[in-house]
């Protein structure tokens, strides 16, 4: 989260056109006219990063890329568990970067220090950013104070993916689980997140729902108790 803060403060001078005083620029920013002159200095990727609502990505493009990621990983593993681990690790890297990006774009400058707010931030703000919807549910596992779960009825990532029976219980949302894990771990909540299939409640057999089960490190729970 510190990186986000420094990114915004360091980023601001770049927005200012050379040879102008910062107060004049502040006035221009207020008037909303700075974009044409100021942003011309920014490379396009930085410009896109600063937009609050970035352009939508075509689902087909993502689905094909994700399918290739899975096929690539599948050729380099010997078991289903190994494949899930690889996808999860891929997600962790994405999650770490995504957290910084979402905070920057959503102007979220405060770092969440409590367990429930950080989970709510992920299941609402980040979920809306990724999928334009909030997570279907966020629950605490009964009788466990360090286990939570995020339920998705039909995750977007696996919209086109049917897992063949010889791969057993493989859930490609291990990637999404990795993303959540990356975000939580880099926010200071050490945890392990795994994706599981659960039967649907409406009786239909397919597609099964996905549960991301989050198991926090005991130290996180201990800290939580001390803070309350």
């Amino acid at each position, binding site marked *: 989260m510190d990186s986000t803060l420094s990114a915004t403060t360091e980023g601001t001078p770049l927005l200012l056109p050379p040879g102008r005083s910062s107060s004049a620029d502040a006035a221009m920013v207020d008037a909303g006219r700075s974009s044409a002159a100021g942003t011309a200095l920014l490379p396009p990727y930085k410009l896109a990063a600063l937009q609050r609502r970035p352009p939508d990505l075509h689902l087909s493009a993502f689905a094909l890329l994700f399918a290739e990621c899975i096929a690539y990983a599948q050729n380099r593993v010997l078991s289903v568990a190994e494949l899930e681990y690889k996808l999860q690790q891929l997600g962790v890297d994405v999650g770490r970067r995504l957290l910084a990006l979402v905070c920057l774009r959503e102007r979220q400058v405060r770092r969440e220090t409590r367990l429930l707010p950080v989970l709510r931030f992920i299941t609402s703000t980040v979920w809306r950013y990724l999928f334009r919807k909030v997570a279907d549910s966020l629950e605490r596992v009964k009788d466990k104070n360090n286990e939570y779960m995020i339920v998705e009825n039909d995750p977007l990532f696996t919209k*086109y993916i*049917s897992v063949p029976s010889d791969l057993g219980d493989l859930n490609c949302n291990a990637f999404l689980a990795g993303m959540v894990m990356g975000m939580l771990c880099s926010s200071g909540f050490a945890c392990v997140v795994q994706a599981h299939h659960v039967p649907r409640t409406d009786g239909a057999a397919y597609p099964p729902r996905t549960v991301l089960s989050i198991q926090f490190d005991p130290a996180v729970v201990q800290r939580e108790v001390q803070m309350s």
Partner: protein
Amino acid sequence: MGIYALFVVNRSGGLIYHEKYVGAPTMSLNEALRMASTFHSVQQIAADVAPVAAAHESGMTAVEAAEFRLRAYQPRTGVQFVLLSTLEVNAEVLQSLLVRLHLLYADYALKNPFYEKDMPIRCKRFEMAVARLLEGYTGRDGVVARPVRA
């Protein structure tokens, strides 16, 4: 009645997906495979011998018979979608269903990392999407027919 059967044939004439509905003649998997490859060959020959230049690309796309109607659709990739129906089903409707089947194939088969190109389609989500698409055409008087499997 409505739609009798659906065939998806790959570019080398192999049957990769088929579904039979109420009213379709009983057909074993081997017969279906033979039918598909025969149709594919006839299609290719028709494209080669066609006297009209426009037909060289599409080949045979329609068969009108006294009892049934056949429509085939072959996009540039060479995969072929064939629908058999009663005469009650409008030809334009069949054509639009074929295009939408192509769309489903592109989504649920080709974007599935576990599907191998040109191999039989065994994707649960594809099956479900096809069933949903053809739901209204596979029964009579509002009764939705279940696909009949060999």
